[in-house]
């Protein structure tokens, strides 16, 4: 391996890869901004106000919150998870196999590691932007109950990174996109539905509750709620951060390995 490996993340070369992704996005973003703003509004109106009306009639509050306020943070968590997935699977396979943008990049001074850091930093940049928009929308619906709410975009960044890192690594290692649809159907969608997203964990029978701990998104949803409500149970918070942090770190190391193999070996 090269001496420049010792320079850690490869600063500052990876910025050039970040810039490449950003420029590409700037050319092709039209449409995605409108949906970034409109989607959370529609969602909160339909589920928060609509379903929330029913909930209020039958049960009153959920975990001490109105239904709208209860689901608003999970909306941010599920969206940032999906961002981590959609930006990583097909785009990365395209970059190593079909369009071969990453092969072009390794013929420049960039190393595979620079490309990985550039990619992940770009995806998290988008996560932050999305997080800010969602936080504003949630605030507009009265969903922030503490100044901690301002950390919501950062929670979004962590969630996106926790999913993007392993997905980038995986996409850089496969030969076809055959498994991607299955990942979406059998991992992303179930997580979206079952991570205590739409109801509290207490809705599950007792024996199922511990299992929810194994769903990665659950930890993101829990952190987002903590931020919105300003309530951070210490042990649980450390646990959530550890799960998402480990996914990011392991995904990053795996990604270094698989991009190295795919691009230069």
């Amino acid at each position, binding site marked *: 391996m*090269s*001496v*420049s490996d010792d320079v850690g993340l490869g600063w500052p*070369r990876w910025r*050039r*890869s970040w*810039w*490449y992704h950003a*420029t*590409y996005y700037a*050319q*092709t973003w039209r449409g995605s901004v409108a949906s970034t703003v409109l989607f959370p509004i529609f969602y909160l109106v339909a589920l928060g106000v609509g379903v929330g009306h029913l909930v209020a009639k039958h049960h009153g509050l959920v975990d001490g919150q109105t239904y709208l306020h209860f689901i608003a943070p999970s909306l941010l968590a599920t969206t940032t998870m999906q961002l981590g997935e959609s930006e990583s699977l097909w785009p990365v396979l395209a970059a190593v196999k079909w*369009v*071969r*943008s990453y*092969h*072009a*990049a*390794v*013929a*420049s*001074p*960039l*190393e595979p590691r620079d490309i990985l850091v550039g990619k992940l930093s770009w995806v998290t940049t988008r996560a932050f932007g999305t997080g800010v928009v969602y936080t504003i929308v949630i605030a507009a619906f009265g969903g922030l109950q503490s100044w901690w709410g301002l950390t919501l975009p950062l929670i979004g960044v962590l969630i996106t990174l926790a999913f993007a890192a392993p997905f980038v690594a995986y996409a850089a290692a496969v030969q076809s996109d055959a498994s991607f649809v299955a990942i979406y159907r059998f991992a992303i969608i179930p997580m979206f539905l079952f991570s205590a997203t739409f109801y509290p964990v207490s809705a599950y029978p007792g024996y199922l509750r511990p299992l929810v701990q194994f769903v990665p998104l659950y930890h993101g949803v829990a952190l987002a709620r903590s931020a919105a409500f300003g309530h951070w149970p210490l042990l649980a918070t450390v646990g959530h951060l550890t799960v998402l942090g480990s996914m990011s770190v392991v995904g990053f190391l795996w990604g270094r390995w698989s991009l190295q193999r795919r*691009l*230069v*070996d």
Partner: protein
Amino acid sequence: MVDLVLTARELSKRFNEITAVDRVSFTIERGESFGFLGPNGAGKTSTMRMISAVSQPTSGELTILGLDPRTDGPEIRGRLGVVPQEDTLELELSVRLNLEMFGRYFDIPRSTLRERATELLAFAQLSERADDRVEELSGGMKRRLTIARALVNRPEILILDEPTTGLDPQARHLLWDRLYRLKREGVTLIITTHYMDEAEQLCDRLVVMDHGTIVATGTPRELIAHHSTREVLELRFDTDSHEDFHARLAPFAQRVEVLPDRILLYVDEGDDTLRQLHAERLTPMSSFVRRSSLEDVFLRLTGRTLVD
């Protein structure tokens, strides 16, 4: 005093059990154009990827621009231009943006890049297409854009992996013309090809590769002089099996090659030989005298034709 830009000694590349490149040694001087001629699977691309400081040799020594690719990869790549065998352009973006965005990988300031992109578009004869999406370009145009992109960092060495494969003759000539211009400007060219005419046209010096090894080195003229005769007499007989004629023709030539559809006689004076054959009543259906080419060198060295 020769200025060597590249030295390879006993360079090998293995992929699991496949040995793609097997202990090749060569040196390349500044300003020359150096070719790798070889059939499919000879190991040309694997060699190019190593000398582009992208993939690491499995064994052997490699020095590029006086630097070691194992430790100075980024610096070396900053001084090279690479035209890969398969285009790696961003199809959805404009021609101009492809140049400018790639230039940013080399940390070239944006204002410099704007000027340089304009120059390179003129060089690649793509100025009119600057704002079109790459998707809309023809194959030859894409290839020229890839070359222009490889020049964005003003490289000292330009490495081209099969620059004209798949192009029609006119597009090839246009591309060759651009490469001559670069050569005159002092850029060192390293070219792989499986077209012998391309090797003859473009290369000052070349190596012939086969099965991962170098089977001959020299200028096109030296290689022909050394491994072939001055002329080749190509004959077709009215027969199902040209092989039958092998023994009868052998006394008339220094060497006889039997191909499925014709026989090649390696001789010094093709017309003389043809007269002798007529005198012996060995009358072919058709005959054709030509000068020896690298194709003949390759046939001699490997027993196979280049393009199959």
